[in-house]
């Protein structure tokens, strides 16, 4: 460990980090459910679901950028010393993947709507610029990636929840509490 000792002695993520984590947890899970739900229906709610999906997606993109900046500045509490190496590696890789998806999914969605030639309009009539040119092949590529990665994202979130609960219920090693908060005074 070469990071500052101050960081390594923390047992919790900072309050801001926890706030961002749980706000984004709710937003991203809602987002994935809205996404698969909206394409499953022709009911009148379809229009509102699509508009909400676009708006929430941009909100998640902004939150993801803020969160990554905060993460780079605040670091993380160390993982337990007795955590087996494969689990440490799994934790590290899965978190990189989660951050990558938080950024990539909204950008793919925004790019896909741009490439479709449709105007990019959010709730409350907010217009965003197209970030890519109108193109069949770009649209198809981004649409396929957006849909495929959505399922990968949900699978990864299930894995993340399972791992968190494993730390909480089986290992009882404080990793879950570092994000969940709990019975000790928060620090950071």
């Amino acid at each position, binding site marked *: 460990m070469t990071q500052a000792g101050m960081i390594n002695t923390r047992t919790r993520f900072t309050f801001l980090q926890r706030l961002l984590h749980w706000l984004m947890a709710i937003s991203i899970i809602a987002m*994935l*459910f809205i996404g*698969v*739900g909206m*394409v*499953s*229906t*022709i*009911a*009148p*709610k*379809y*229009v509102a679901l*699509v508009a909400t999906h676009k708006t929430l997606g941009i909100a998640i993109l902004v939150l993801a950028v803020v969160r990554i900046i905060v993460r780079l500045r605040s670091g993380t509490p160390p993982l*337990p010393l*007795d955590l087996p190496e494969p689990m440490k590696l799994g934790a590290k890789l899965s978190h990189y993947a989660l951050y990558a998806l938080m950024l990539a999914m909204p950008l793919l969605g925004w790019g896909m709507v741009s490439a*479709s*030639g*449709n*105007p990019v*309009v959010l709730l409350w*009539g907010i*217009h965003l610029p197209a970030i890519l040119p*109108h193109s*069949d*092949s770009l*649209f*198809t590529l981004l*649409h*396929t990636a957006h849909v495929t990665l959505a399922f990968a994202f*949900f699978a990864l*979130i*299930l894995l993340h*929840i*399972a791992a968190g*609960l*494993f730390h909480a*219920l*089986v*290992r*009882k*090693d404080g990793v879950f509490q570092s994000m969940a908060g709990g019975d000790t005074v928060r620090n950071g």
Partner: protein
Amino acid sequence: MAQQSPGSSLASLALIAVVVAAGAGAFAYTAGWLSPDRVSGATLVQALTPPSGPALGHRRNHAKGICFTGTFEANGNGSELSRAQVFTAGQYPVLGRFNFSTPDPKAPDATSRVRGLGLQISTPDGNVWRSAMIDPPFFPVATPDAFYALLQASGSKDPDAMKTFAAAHPEIAAFGGWAGTAPWIESYAEETYNGLNAFLFIDRSGARHAVRWSLKPQAEVKSMSGEEFAKLGPDHLAEEITARVGKEPQHWTMVITVADASDPTADPSKAWPEDRRKVDVGTLTVDKIQPEADGPCRDINFDPTILPDGITVSDDPFPAARSAAYAKSFALRMSEEKDYPRGDAAKQGTQP
């Protein structure tokens, strides 16, 4: 680290498995994977596909069409009803598509009773208004679910399927009457195109007005029997509009019909009474025709929920259902670009 007995570990692992399974199950339910009867955009597109399969690279319905460009000149009269810039007096660029209802882009013109016009008007404030209109005065059925049932019945091998459908959806009789008796019109330029769906116009005070819109031709209407029309040739409509617009631009008046409080806005199978207030809001001018393969309308999704600020969806359930189905059709044909060649390849492809 607190250690625990193997038994309680097992119970914890079981609990984790239950949480993960519940999450996956809720996701599958939301996605409709556990509800095979749920109608999605994909279901509608599948129902529109003929037994011989889809025409790859083309729209899944209204597949035969031709692009146009032109202008919409607003006269300012619509500003009282909607704050959308498109109704402020001025000229705005238009692109669109004449078409008729068929899953087959090579279908002879006389095989379809329903013709349409897709329209996009763009305004300097960045707003885009898209609409897809058809020439019947009302829609065949009252709800999207009934439309899906109609597609199923018309594709069914059961000889009584249409009879059963008509009994459950009596509104189809009026459409049958129109399709059986309305004269055939010789040109896209002479057609009236009706939006049919009700939308809400929002004026500058924020008040909402339920409306429908139509494009009325300024050209003289020449009509004939179906037999006479068929004799004009399988591609008459595209050839005729190309030649006609090549000689002089063609014009339509955009007419907004304002609903009374008593008028149904959720049912496009019911026309509103003729004496409803009508406002002429401007003129559509079509001054250039281009083949679809290379034309500007090819990659445009004329999704009726793409609306400018000042127009919004009403309780009419069709725009949402159409948007869902159009999105699916669009995604399919975009991925099939190679099956519908552009450029020189397209020109060779259309020459027999």
